[in-house]
């Protein structure tokens, strides 16, 4: 018998740490780094996700080329089973790590609601096909990146800034001699360049925390019972080549069952390939060294899908029928004019079909312009990106969002076509705009308008101001043909509260129905 000097478990930990570090590295690199083109495939995590690949391809009714790496995941799963969940998945690593802070209430080896993930998977796939793409609500990577990008990372910056502002303001010189270089180093390496602010930051955080808090129910409860990606990998693992084999004549100890974080081992010590994530903890824990993982499949009957046929059909039917109701809303007739999609976004239906709500575009947007929608694009559009021009604007020379989008929901545009893509149109509110409403000179908007021939121009007008004097002021107006909807005018408008110039989706080039009078191309 071989003596275990380096427990298998440690190899897995190492792999998890490496994968998680790689994930964090790519997460931080999802940013402008001094070059217009991103140097790394920062979105690779989403492109190896077969759940998202399947759902977006079904929604698009075409194989999405960008997502071909997902096939690799499937091939590896066919060989090794659900190894991904145990060895690579960053959320899996996070759960394994958090597990030490929770004592699960349910200690029985059997998983609760084990089949839920299959119903969910069926529902998501069918719904995607029938026009309700909501996989991103449940996809583990989407949940993770969204939570980190929209809440955790910005909060980290708040924490660092508050701490180092405190030391800077209050601490004696010698303390600053230490803290200031540390702060500079952190800013240079891990901290975001700017403080960002996001819609739905707290909700995204709450969802991520809930997934972690599920550890209180059972170890890896999310992976066992909810994760639809796990469900898909489980289905594929049914045919995998590598399997765990338990000893036929072992004693009465239940070490392996007790230790299995996935509830994969039954009373007869059969290891279900559908649940097993190849963590190999059972191998290390077996006092008789009777468990082994080998390429000799199917000697053990895989645990059946334990699905209730009726419930399963029900979940499929729901996925097929619910989308019908989406068509009955007013939103189906008239899109929300406040919904501004990033430059290069596909027409709305295609866009929603492909958008996997991963938050990559929002993370990368250097203008802090992109935010997750709540209900602006309907219940099925939650967490898809929209531009909130009062918070931030689309930087004229920037093309990053198209570069990071893993599914092509935002087309990758070169700088020049991007600068000609109209994502909306600005309008003036003359009741607020100072030169109109109060006879006060301003035109900050015109100053910032980035189009080489300005989309904001002005006429001189004489106005009676609030002191009843007649004054000459420049009054701005929009030239629709030139405005590209970048929104910098709304962002920089110096008025408190509402801006006097506001962006709407009118005229967006992805939607010919939305053309403005005078700008419409014949179609």
């Amino acid at each position, binding site marked *: 018998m071989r003596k275990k000097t380096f427990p298998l478990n440690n190899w897995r930990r190492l792999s998890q740490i490496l994968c998680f570090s790689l994930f964090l590295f790519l997460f931080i690199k999802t940013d*402008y780094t*001094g070059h217009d083109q991103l140097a790394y495939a920062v979105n690779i995590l989403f492109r190896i996700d077969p759940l998202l690949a399947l759902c977006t391809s079904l929604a698009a009714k075409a194989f999405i080329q960008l997502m071909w790496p997902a096939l690799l995941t499937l091939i590896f799963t066919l060989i090794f089973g659900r190894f991904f969940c145990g060895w690579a998945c960053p959320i899996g690593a996070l759960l394994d790590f958090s597990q030490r802070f929770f004592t699960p209430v349910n200690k029985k080896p059997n998983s609760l609601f084990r089949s839920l993930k299959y119903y969910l998977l069926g529902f998501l796939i069918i719904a995607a096909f029938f026009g309700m793409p909501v996989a991103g609500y449940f996809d583990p990577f989407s949940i993770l990146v969204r939570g980190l990008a929209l809440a955790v990372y910005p909060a980290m910056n708040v924490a660092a*800034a508050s701490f180092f*502002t405190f030391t*800077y*303001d*209050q601490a004696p010189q010698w303390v600053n001699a230490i803290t200031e270089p540390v702060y500079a180093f952190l800013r240079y390496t891990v901290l975001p*360049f*700017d403080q960002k602010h996001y819609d739905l930051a707290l909700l995204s955080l709450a969802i991520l925390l809930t997934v972690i808090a599920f550890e209180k129910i059972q170890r890896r409860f999310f992976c066992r019972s909810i994760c639809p990606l796990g469900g898909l990998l489980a289905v594929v693992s049914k045919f995998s080549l590598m399997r765990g084999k338990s000893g036929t004549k072992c004693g009465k100890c239940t070490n392996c069952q007790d230790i299995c974080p996935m509830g994969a081992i039954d009373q007869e010590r059969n290891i279900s390939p559908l649940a097993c994530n190849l963590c190999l903890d059972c191998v290390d824990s077996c006092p008789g060294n009777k468990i082994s993982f080998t390429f000799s499949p199917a000697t053990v009957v895989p645990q059946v899908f334990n699905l209730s046929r009726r419930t399963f059909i029900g979940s499929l039917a729901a996925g097929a029928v619910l989308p019908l109701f989406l068509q009955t809303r007013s939103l189906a007739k008239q899109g929300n004019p406040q919904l501004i999609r990033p430059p290069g976004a596909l027409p709305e239906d295609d866009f929603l079909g492909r958008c996997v709500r991963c938050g990559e575009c929002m993370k990368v947007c*250097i*203008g802090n312009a992109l935010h997750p929608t709540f209900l602006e694009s309907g219940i099925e559009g939650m967490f898809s990106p929209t531009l909130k021009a009062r918070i931030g604007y689309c*930087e*004229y*020379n*920037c093309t990053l969002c198209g570069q990071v989008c893993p599914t092509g929901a935002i087309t990758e545009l070169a700088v020049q076509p991007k600068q000609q893509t109209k994502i909306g149109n600005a309008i003036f509110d003359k009741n607020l705009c*100072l030169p109109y409403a109060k006879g*006060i*000179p*301003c*035109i*900050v908007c*015109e*100053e*910032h308008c*980035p*189009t*080489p*021939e*300005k989309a904001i121009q*002005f006429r001189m007008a004489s106005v009676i101001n609030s002191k009843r004097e007649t004054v000459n002021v*420049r009054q701005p107006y929009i030239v629709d043909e030139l405005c590209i909807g970048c929104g910098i005018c709304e962002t*920089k*408008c*110096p008025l408190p509260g509402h801006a006097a110039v506001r962006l709407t989706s009118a005229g967006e080039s992805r939607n010919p129905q939305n053309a403005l009078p005078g700008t419409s191309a014949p179609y």
Partner: protein
Amino acid sequence: MDRREFLKQVSMWSAGLSITVPHFTIISEALAAQRQAPVIAYAKGKDYAALVSQILDSLGGMEKFVKSGNTVVIKPNIGWDRNPDQAANTHPLIVKALVEHALDAGAKEVKVFDRTCNEARRCYVNSGVQDILKTIKSNRVTFFHPDERKYIPVDISKGQAARRLEIYKDALEADSYINVPIAKHHSLSTLTLGMKNSMGVLGGKRGDMHHDLGQKIADLATIVRPTLTVIDATRILLRNGPQGGNLNDVKVLDTIIASTDPVAIDAYATTFFEMKPGDIPSTVAAYKHGLGEMDLAKIKIIKT
């Protein structure tokens, strides 16, 4: 109030030792007494680094403005995500030349920064300033993005439109402040010249400056007073300022001018656009504050 007393207030405030906002009063008479007939050095040519040397020479050399051991702030305009040809930002070669002269004059530290209008990193890169400053191998040069914590509120006792502004600490404390704007069109201020460039050291919501812009720029100029102003007119933006973007709006003049009088140099630069000093509200307002001369007849031009 003299500058030394003011700086004491600034450092007490920023160290948290004082809760009263530093304030600054200028006494016009005192300024007038200091003032001699303003001189503008003018140089034209294709070699921008050489032009910088020429104008500095004709003003008596960089040593006149930077003493050995001084902390120097060089404040170019890097406000926009535009490249050097588009004439929205100060030409990187001019920035580089000035930094090198300051180093040669024995500066202890040369700080270069701007608070940008577009995304800060993009502006630093696309303007060409970041790359060119990297070629200067000296640890006495720092090129950085402004640090939020370093804006200090200042009461402007003589301010007419701006009574309190947040100003970057390094700009207030510098021994030598060299202002390096580019001359270009701006719809509201008519032109963006030297004094307007100082808006780059302001914190807070700068958009508010635009209501009565000319006066506010002049009020700011009572506090932020450059040791030297160098105006980049190597290429000027005639229309669609301040950021342009269209090369048809750019006119190449291959000219640099410099002066210690911030009003006189703005007044003179106006003529590049076929306008008169009186057309620029900030020039007029600063003249009335007693900050310098705007009468072209009283300004001495040294052509090199």
